[in-house]
């Protein structure tokens, strides 16, 4: 409804405006689930910026869903001008499976093509009755941990790797101790939801479990939406720097002639105005100035990266989540 009203207003505005050559451009941004609110805001800001700069009207349509499913839709022909997904592995697939973008896509924009980051934190019941403060507490007997299946959920892969990284960094930590730790942790997981939102519902609505492993921005959102009197956010001593990257889809923008505006759409995410919006939606901004302004919002914790600790997504995927990987071994295969 609102979109229709905006469209109508824009059309009326266009009809009345003296600008004769102003064009209307549409873009499709295919994204994952928790970015819905972020891009609602950002699209408005970008449309205003683009209008002021070029006089053209840009309308950005959004598609949200599980990150892997979204990538498959684009490979199968969904005409996305830009993709903003949960992990690089899913955008890699656009290159390896679909030949839609060049293999070096992640070097085309600053910071690994990741204009914002997040991390994995714990959401616990108000007052933290089970005294959960760090990863080590999750394997205590009687603690129920809620996390979706890393086989089907991009977010859950970040959870899994964060737990693994913590165990690896403990005194005497090795791949073997990390696997044993993660195995023990998953023995405390009573339900494996298929997606991140499903897991959040299980924890928040069904009241199951003592701790939810969640994206930091999702955790903040849950606390904000459902009331700070119900949940607390606990930051573990160490977690993983979750980098949800962005890219234009070359074959689509070249066919539709939208390359320039699509590139600008992503670049504007890095501008102070874009970073401000990002931070408001509880993603960690890259820009040091904006980050400093929002520093109080985000807990300080040691963050490891997928590249340094796991050698990049392709390796992590093969070692842990592919058939016969460490996650399958946990469940005795």
């Amino acid at each position, binding site marked *: 409804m609102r979109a229709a009203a905006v469209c109508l207003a824009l059309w009326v505005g266009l009809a009345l405006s003296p600008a004769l050559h102003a064009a209307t451009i549409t873009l499709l941004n295919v994204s994952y689930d928790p970015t819905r609110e972020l891009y609602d805001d950002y699209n408005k800001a970008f449309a205003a910026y683009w209008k002021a700069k070029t006089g053209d009207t840009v309308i950005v349509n959004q598609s949200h869903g599980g990150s892997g499913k979204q990538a498959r839709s684009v490979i199968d022909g969904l005409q996305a001008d830009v993709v903003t997904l949960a992990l690089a592995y899913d955008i890699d697939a656009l290159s390896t499976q679909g030949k839609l973008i060049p293999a070096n896509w992640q070097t085309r924009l600053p910071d690994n093509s990741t204009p914002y980051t997040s991390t994995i934190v714990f959401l616990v019941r108000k007052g933290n009755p089970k005294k959960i403060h760090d990863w080590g507490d999750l394997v205590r007997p009687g603690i129920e941990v809620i996390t979706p299946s890393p*086989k*089907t959920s991009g977010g859950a892969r970040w959870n899994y790797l964060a737990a693994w990284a913590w165990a690896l960094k403990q005194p005497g930590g090795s791949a073997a101790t990390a696997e044993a730790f993660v195995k023990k942790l998953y023995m405390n997981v009573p339900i494996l939801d298929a997606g991140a939102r499903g897991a959040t519902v299980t924890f928040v609505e069904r009241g199951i479990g003592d701790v939810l492993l969640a994206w930091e921005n999702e955790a903040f959102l849950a606390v904000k939406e459902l009331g700070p009197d119900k949940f607390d956010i606990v930051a573990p001593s160490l977690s993983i720097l979750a980098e949800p990257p962005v890219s234009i889809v070359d074959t689509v923008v070249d066919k539709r002639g939208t390359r320039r505006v699509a590139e600008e759409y992503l670049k504007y995410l890095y501008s102070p105005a874009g970073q401000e919006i990002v931070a408001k939606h509880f993603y960690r901004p890259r820009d040091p100035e904006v980050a400093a302004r929002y520093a109080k919002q985000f807990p300080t914790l040691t963050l490891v990266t997928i590249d340094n600790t796991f050698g990049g997504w392709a390796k992590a995927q093969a070692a842990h989540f592919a058939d016969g990987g460490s996650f399958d071994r946990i469940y005795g295969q």
Partner: protein
Amino acid sequence: MANSRTPLIPGFGLTLGYTMVYLSLVVLIPLSATFIRSFDLGVGHFWTVVTAPRVVASLRLSFGAAWLAACVNALFGLIIAWVLVRYSFPGRRLIDAMVDLPFALPTAVAGIALTALYTPNGWLGRLLLPLGIRVAFKPLGVVVALIFIGLPFVVRTLQPVLEELDQDVEQAAATLGASEWQTFSRVILPALWPALLTGFALAFARAVGEYGSVIFIAGNMPMRSEIAPLLIITKLEQYDYAGATAIAVVMLVLSFALMLGINALQGWAFGRHGAR
């Protein structure tokens, strides 16, 4: 029954041609695409994929739970259809309409509603917990969801047959000295068998492939409460299209074999009792 005389309405060639084209477009071509895609794997790899313990466990759960749910639905669907056809009572139309709800409801909504009901803190789950029965996030939850989505198939296939069943026949049986049980088992039930089997088969087939409602209530624990369609999705998440279609092919072949068996059984029931 078999009618070999010239049919009244001509056009056999046209309609058969239409049937073949339509079936090909809607059913055969998509299915053969699935088969062909699974050939990417090669026989050896195909076998490894479909005999992996986790895949076998999920197939057992999917087919077992669907079978169990269809059995429950056959029994209770029969009772519901009987009550709706044979008795007139206030609210009958309302109940009649309610039978179709599982058809109309998006399956995900059904799954979420059932999960909310049967979790340990849900309305029903709370009552069942002291009895040591846990439904949500256990294989039993899968069966419950499948019963829910399969019910209309049995009721709706039985209703028209029951409506056409002549009550005079039952009275005749009674006057000939048949007990109530004899009337039911030797007069009514034989006439119902074919429709009951159809309803069972439909409910079963629907349940085997069900994803949306089950996924929320199953808990999805590997080897225990993971359904086969979820494993297909899992493979797709890894961009393993061939592996995903391999499982799909096994499900197709199994379903087809079972359907064929049920059809044969139906033919036998039909031939033996000659419903009409």
